[in-house]
């Protein structure tokens, strides 16, 4: 199921959540809507779902205009950040809800719910209440509930935002496998670039109500169109007035043609890699460089050493920091 969003605008009082946003999401893909909080990404998702009304603009699902179609008739699954579990219902009844209101035959409900609980590994917990589940289990239940009605489009609003790091890591991999298995179009909102990079086919970066850039994770990482996207997709540092990635800086003990002299201020071991912070002299910000531990040993680098920094042969992107 493909989605086209055209010229969407939405304000809450004086706050412009979305300003003239147009994006396309292709059928069968896993799309991440990425951006800082308050940037408008959740509003975009909620308008696609029909939970929020746009001030202007249209939403097309598979080419047909659904702008004025009620949420319950859009055939979508929605997963909320805080699960929105029906607290007075058991896990089983939560998952069965969509089928029950659609008046599906009892036998079909039983088979489908059983199948979904297997899929999310909650079969043993079917008679429990949401209050008796962990956060990760509750979110898996919410996902099964959304999938019960066989939506062609699955929307997830910061689905793992309220979970701890380890569970989040597990669930995101699991979401990717699930997406491939059930073969829906999936859109999820996140402020975690790593999450977006790791599992999505396409990323749409939204900031201050505008689409900054959209494309594959590699495109966005390697060819960001502006400083914001570059900074949001990964770590950045400045060298000689240019914005670069810390792993794109070459460190040398001898002055080359374009080497910036700097003094090593700190060496922080991060396991396989080491972060080097160097002071290029008065008036310039410290430069952060990411090196492998082996490289540090080869050069026998110590705090206080004089080094020369240059951007390595194929930089991800160069931008003058003053430009934006």
């Amino acid at each position, binding site marked *: 199921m493909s989605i086209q969003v055209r010229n969407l605008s939405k304000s809450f009082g004086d706050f412009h959540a979305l300003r003239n946003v147009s994006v396309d999401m292709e059928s069968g893909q896993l799309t991440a809507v990425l951006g800082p909080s308050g940037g408008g990404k959740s509003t975009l998702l909620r308008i696609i779902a029909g939970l929020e009304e746009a001030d202007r603009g249209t939403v097309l699902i598979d080419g047909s205009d659904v702008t004025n179609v009620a949420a*319950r008739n859009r055939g979508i699954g*929605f997963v909320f950040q805080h699960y929105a579990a*029906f607290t007075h219902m058991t896990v089983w009844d939560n998952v069965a809800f*969509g089928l029950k*209101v659609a008046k599906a035959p009892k036998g079909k409900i039983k088979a489908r719910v059983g199948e979904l609980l297997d899929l999310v590994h909650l079969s043993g917990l079917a008679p429990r209440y949401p209050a008796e589940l962990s956060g990760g289990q509750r979110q898996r239940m919410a996902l099964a509930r959304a999938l019960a009605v066989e939506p062609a489009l699955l929307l997830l609003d910061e689905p793992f935002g309220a979970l701890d790091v380890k569970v989040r890591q597990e669930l995101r991999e699991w979401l990717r496998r699930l997406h491939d298995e059930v073969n829906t179009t999936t859109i999820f909102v996140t402020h975690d670039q790593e999450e977006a990079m790791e599992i999505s086919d396409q990323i749409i970066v939204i900031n201050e109500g505008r689409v900054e850039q959209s494309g594959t994770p590699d495109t966005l990482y390697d060819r960001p169109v502006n400083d914001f996207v570059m900074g949001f997709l990964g770590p950045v540092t400045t060298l000689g007035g240019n914005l670069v990635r810390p792993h794109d800086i070459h460190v040398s003990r001898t002055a080359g043609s374009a080497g910036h002299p700097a003094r090593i201020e700190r060496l922080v071991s991060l396991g396989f890699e080491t972060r080097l912070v160097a002071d290029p002299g008065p008036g310039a910000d410290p430069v952060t460089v990411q090196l492998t531990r082996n490289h540090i040993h080869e050069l026998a680098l110590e705090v206080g050493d004089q080094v020369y920094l240059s951007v390595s042969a194929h930089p991800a992107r160069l931008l003058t920091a003053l430009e934006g």
Partner: protein
Amino acid sequence: MRKYVLRYAVLGYLVMLLAVPVFVIAYRTFAHGLSPVWDALSSHAAVNALELSLLITAIAVPINVIFGVATGWFLARRKMPLPWLVNAVINMPFAMSPVIIGLSVFVLYGRTGWIGTYLFAHNIPVLFTWKAMVIATVFVSLPFVVREVVPVLEEIGTEQEQAAQVLGASALQGFFRVTLPAIRWAVVYGTILTVARALGEYGAVNLVSSGFVGQGLTLPLYVDNRVNQLDPTAAYSAGLLLALLSLIILVGMTAFASRRRRQT
């Protein structure tokens, strides 16, 4: 040591204030054995008073529960126009003496009142009948369900309702399958408070009652009437019956309150 003194002082105060008077009524009621009590309670006037009280409660409580849940929902979901005004009107019975509420019903439904003029012209008697007493009771017991339901609705938020919506539920299905079950203890608790208030109401119904013994008196009005008519056995018996009903409500309330705590 000091904390025990304070504790027992508070307990003693409560016993003096509440338990002793109830005990005295019970003691006086049965001073001459069971049979005078049975005679007093099975008299036509007493039975009629109990029936009238139950009738008024049975009509006023469902009205207030339905209205209270609906109003509470509109208020909590910010869909109510002029919410400050609606809140003020709903809270009025808390602030205002029931006599004034009774008086307003009296004025409104009287022969020259705005509504009364119409009713009398069409020969529909309301004032001095059980209907006026129901109206007065509805008014004085108006706030209880609303005030219980609004905070719970605000606490559970709108996410569950939205989840029901995207799963294909209509607004009504969402309300009855998701919202109402989620607030059920608040509704039950508010209902019990409403019943207690409706059964015990005196001031407001007093003003709109016909005052005829065996026809227009609720249980509290009947107790008052018997005291004034120097019929202590009937007064004590009816009073004890009223206290007993309150006790049942109190026990129910406590049971539900602890259940509600466990659930959240």
